[in-house]
């Protein structure tokens, strides 16, 4: 019977060690799991701590030096003069322009991303979900420069967009918009509107994916419960879906906001000749050779993001985590 089988089973109750270095290591790691953790974390921590953060601090330290205006040499003495330079009207303009653009791009990305993420999280299954991921990720796989030049052609005066609007007899709409101050210009490809469109296009996946992940974690029955308790779909969105998706929206906005703050290629190819922070950093450390001012400009997005996260936390954006 069964019992007899068990008793005649020759396998010992405790198996011998597999021997050798591998066996000894396995046993050691089992007994001291923290040792394994240390071994695994050491290389990335060294990389992040020394190479990455270290060089960032070295750069930031430069912002407390100043440049000798006659010789163009860097004066390695502590001073806040470079930060003072940031507040010159021209530089302040650059900062304000960049922050406004980043805020608008973030807002637009969130508004466009939410329905897409909502559909993907709630309705898409199987093949449609795969198609969603492919659709969102595919633009990320192709070269960033190719995409921007493609947009330059699309938005140009001779481009497909103008042609399409002309066919639809909607050219007056485009011309009306382009005649507006600040957002307008000769054509979309040399206006802030063009810069804005391309920024939104390029960073949109970085908003969709975190929002989708956040919505995926919202149990479907919370939406039902809200509706059951008398909330209209609009009220359910405001009181349940939006607060629960907020950590995802904040995570996505960190990407869209900080990437827009730092980018110098898009505004250089598409838009007006007025500078953004990234372009200012690029020209200060390159042609102008003013490393301290370039470093001070780099501090601006870091400080802004710090305040942004602090504000988001104060508003309870992470309460649902």
């Amino acid at each position, binding site marked *: 019977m069964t019992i007899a089988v068990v008793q005649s089973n020759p396998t010992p109750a405790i198996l011998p060690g597999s021997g050798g270095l591998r066996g000894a290591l396995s046993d050691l790691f089992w007994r001291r799991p923290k040792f394994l953790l240390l071994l695994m974390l050491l290389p990335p921590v060294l990389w992040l701590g020394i190479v990455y953060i270290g060089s960032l601090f070295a750069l930031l330290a430069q912002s407390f030096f100043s440049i000798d205006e006659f010789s163009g040499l860097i004066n390695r003495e502590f001073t806040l003069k470079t930060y003072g330079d940031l507040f010159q009207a021209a530089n302040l303009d650059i900062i304000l322009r960049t922050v406004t653009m980043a805020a608008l791009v973030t807002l637009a990305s969130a508004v466009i991303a939410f329905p897409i993420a909502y559909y993907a999280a709630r309705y898409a299954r199987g093949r449609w979900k795969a198609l969603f991921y492919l659709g969102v990720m595919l633009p990320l796989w192709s070269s960033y420069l190719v995409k921007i030049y493609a947009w330059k052609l699309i938005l140009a005066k001779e481009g497909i967009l103008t042609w399409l609007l002309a066919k639809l007899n909607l050219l007056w709409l485009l011309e009306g918009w382009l005649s507006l101050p600040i957002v307008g210009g000769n054509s979309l490809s040399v206006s802030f509107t063009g810069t804005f469109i391309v920024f939104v296009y390029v960073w949109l996946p970085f908003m969709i994916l975190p929002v989708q992940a956040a919505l995926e974690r919202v*149990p479907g*029955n*919370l939406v*039902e*419960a*809200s*509706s*059951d*308790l*008398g*909330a*209209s779909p609009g*009220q359910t969105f405001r*009181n*349940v879906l939006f*607060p*629960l998706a907020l950590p995802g929206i904040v995570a996505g906005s960190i990407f869209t906001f900080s990437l827009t703050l730092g980018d110098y290629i898009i505004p250089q190819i598409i838009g007006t000749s007025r500078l953004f922070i990234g372009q200012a950093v690029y020209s200060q450390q390159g042609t102008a050779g003013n490393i301290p001012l370039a470093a001070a400009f780099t501090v601006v997005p870091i400080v802004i993001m710090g305040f942004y996260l602090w504000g988001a936390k104060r508003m309870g954006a992470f*309460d*649902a985590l």
Partner: protein
Amino acid sequence: MTSAVSFKKVSRHFGSVRAVDAVDLEIAAGEFFAMLGPSGSGKTTCLRLIAGFEQPTAGSISIFGERAEGVPPYRRNVNTVFQDYALFPHLNVLDNVAYGLMVKGVGKAERLKAAEEALSLVRLPGYGTRRPGQLSGGQRQRVALARALVNQPKVLLLDEPLGALDLKLRENMQEELKSLQKVLGITFVFVTHDQGEALSMADRVAVFNDGRIMQVGTPEDIYQRPNTRFVADFVGSSNVLPPDFVQRYSGQHRWGSLRPESIRVSNATSGDGVAARLVGTNYLGATTRLALDADGLRLHAVVPAGTSLPAEGEAVMLTFNRDSLHLMDEPA
């Protein structure tokens, strides 16, 4: 008097799956009604049809005389206690309970006062500032109950609300729900797969199988006089007796059911009764459940603890009162 809930030939088909199939149902106002059945039998879909989360593919539903098809959940004065409670994780307990009043536009002071009262009703006063994540399963269940009751619904729907609780807590909650329902006088519709729960709490029980209602009746009806083999077997695992067996004792060629507790087991080897062999014993505390083999027919008997029992494998004699043999409507 109008029924609280009335189903007329209601079906809900998902493609080729008939989750609910031509169900007729009348639930009286103020009644504690249980929907009992195995998983996939359509009881939860029926509940969701009342709540408005599902729409019938055919038939008509009315709630207190008013047609409910096409009416969204948020316009039904019906509230649900969900199986896993579905408390809002980003709101504290008090705001969870006050949610229904908040979306209806009740002022803050008034709704928080009502929520506090509802929490006292479910014996959780002072828990308002906690987050749902900080509560135990039993406490969350009470919050979900308070959140539904604070809206004073015409019908309260409970979807296996006690399923996740341990035995002791479940028994306490059964008593509390029952007395709460008596005090409030609200119609309760309670979905469960636990026949003990359905029998002990409900005024009437509907037994579901394969999207249809097999039998509706008082717990006693259902338990003592099942009309089909399915009901007899599902409610209290009755012994289902084949027509040939039943004919010997009742003279009628019909399916019969015999409750395990109606069977007496003796050591006698001869005399009147059914000769059987004891094949297994399960000790259940207050009672012992015996598995018996009567010439190929598998039977179960339940005897009180302390009864002296024959050993496994021994021959025994089974006797029962003719009255306790129930004949079922189901054709042989």
